């Protein structure tokens, strides 16, 4: 049971990323409204999820790579400090990300946009404490015992982490996009859109602090 919490956390963070208008559902709705077609909303979701997944996978790979040679404590501390620094930066400059203008874009560009936004906002970084807490797979466990290498050979587990997170993100993003497009309308943005940039920065700093002291 203790092993289940990181997976649950990946799902919850996926839902959190999915509900953030800046991560893609709003773009999907905008494309649907521009084309006056629900199909356009749905067609935008997969490329956005794909870009998000690649950004997450990048962080997973980096953490895995560093874990292959760095001692666990150093990895934990380094990651925690990176999180705190990044969170503080996002707090001061929430709007800092690659400048993007443009509505008329293809599926590939949409995925690229999603990758850039997820990366610039530190979506993957936010998963750091969960990633280092993921239970190693049986084989990796075995290998780790033999060679003292944590995280090596656990590609299946890492891929599962990316998939679980992205699936949750896609599900929530899709649900919000369709409900807003079909039922609520965009007026909801004026009241219900709390400052997720601020929450996001606080979450990242808190995650860093949590990682540092656990």
């Amino acid at each position: 049971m203790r092993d289940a919490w990181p997976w649950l956390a990946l799902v919850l963070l996926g839902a959190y990323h999915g509900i953030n208008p800046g991560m893609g559902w709003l773009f999907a709705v905008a494309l649907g409204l521009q084309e006056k077609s629900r199909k356009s909303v749905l067609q935008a979701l997969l490329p956005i999820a794909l870009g998000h997944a690649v950004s997450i996978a990048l962080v997973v790979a980096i953490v895995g790579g560093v874990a292959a040679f760095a001692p666990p404590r150093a990895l934990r501390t380094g990651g925690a400090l990176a999180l705190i620094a990044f969170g503080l930066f996002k707090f001061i400059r929430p709007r800092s990300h690659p400048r993007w203008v443009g509505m008329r874009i293809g599926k590939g560009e949409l995925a690229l946009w999603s990758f850039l936004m997820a990366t610039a906002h530190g979506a993957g970084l936010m998963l750091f404490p969960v990633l280092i807490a993921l239970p190693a797979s049986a084989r990796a466990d075995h290998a780790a015992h033999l060679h003292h290498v944590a995280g090596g050979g656990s590609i299946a587990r890492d891929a599962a982490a990316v998939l679980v997170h992205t699936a949750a993100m896609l599900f929530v993003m899709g649900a919000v996009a369709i409900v807003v497009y079909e039922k609520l309308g965009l007026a909801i943005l004026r009241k219900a859109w709390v400052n997720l940039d601020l929450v996001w920065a606080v979450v990242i700093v808190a995650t860093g602090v949590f990682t540092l002291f656990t």
Partner: protein
Amino acid sequence: MPLWNPDPTFYPSARLAMQAPAERHAFVSALNPKQKGSADAICVVDVAPDSPTYGTVVGRVEMPNEGDEVHHFGWNACSSALCPYAPHPHVERRYLLVPGLRSSRLHVIDTKPDPRKPKIVKVIEPETVASRAGYSRLHTVHCAPDGIYVGALGAPDGNGPGGIMVLDHDSFEVMGRWEVDRGPQQLAYDFAWHLGYDTLLTSEWGTPNMVENGLNPELLVGGKYGHSLHVWDLRKRKHLQALDLGAEQQMVLELRPAHDPTKAYGFVGVVVSIKDLSASIWVWHLKNGAWAIKKVIEIPPEPADASKLPPALQPFKAVPPLVTDIELSLDDKFLYVSCWGTGELRQYDVSDPFNPRLAGTVRMGGIVSHAPHAKGGELNGGPQMVEVSRDGRRVYLTNSLYASWDAQFYPEGIRGWMAKVDANQEGGISVDPEFFVPFEGERPHQVRLEGGDASSDSYCYP
């Protein structure tokens, strides 16, 4: 400070913005025509009918230098902050960016906490503008999703090309020149965009050297002032197409794209045709993948006794309408056209943009008619800058164009005023006899309404 909810003045669509509460203050740029001793100002006019100071100037902030020629200005942030590709709407619509059209100096004015006590918080000097962007004579200001865009008439030496520079929307620092490939474009004036089509448009007046010493009759007769519209790729910052209206169509000025981002058309006004002194309105539109332009309104000159005309117009024995500003209501239904020469404001129903219908007209001032206002008496100058409230019910007018041109068309000297016209939503306009703001010794130009107006914001959603 970041906000917890989006700024309440941001609306996803123009349709929703029409439900905004009525404005309570208007910010008006006021030119001081005296060359020495006093500076230009931004004035705050009380436009709340329930206020004891309704219809009077209740605040002002003077520029730190003389001779700026404040003209157009705009907000640091607006509804475009809700655009889906860079949505960060938890910022305030708070700062007015006020360029000096002559000085090229850019002022950042804080309108909070008290809109009646605006303060200058930052000044960008012309040297900085010149070294970072290569531009000069700053004109139009628009808040884009990715920064603040500022149009410029020309280069520091007073020649072309004019263009657009981009400011960071947090620090207001000049980031640089917008254009990557300007193609044949040299002349500049206004700019606007269709966010739903990743398309930017620019219009043409003249270089600083062509306009600063007054309207040059030789250039005019030679068709040398701007007569084209330029279409740009907003993403790639590349010139795509020049739409030439014909050399006789002199000075293609204010651009008013449809507010609904799914509609690919907009209106532009031409000041004067050298063939017959008429003014005209054209519609640009997307047709089979390319942009095209078509004349949809022509306003003829009015015959006049030569003795009542300024020297420049006497040979023609007629007053040109001189369409110097136009404005489109947020529902894309009514187009307001000011005829600064004849002293007329026209309201067109443009529900069908290719077949406009004249829905209403009022007269105020005018070169010959000097049509009076119930409260202001006989007026000079004419309806010039037009601003429409977000709900489309109130239209604010001011009467000064540009100092050196004012002197040619109204040689007796413009006496500054601001007036208000009430608009019937079924069509029809009437002058509000109670609202009249005289600007003694100053000349008002652009009006910006607190919370936004019909030309301050752009929208990414229909």
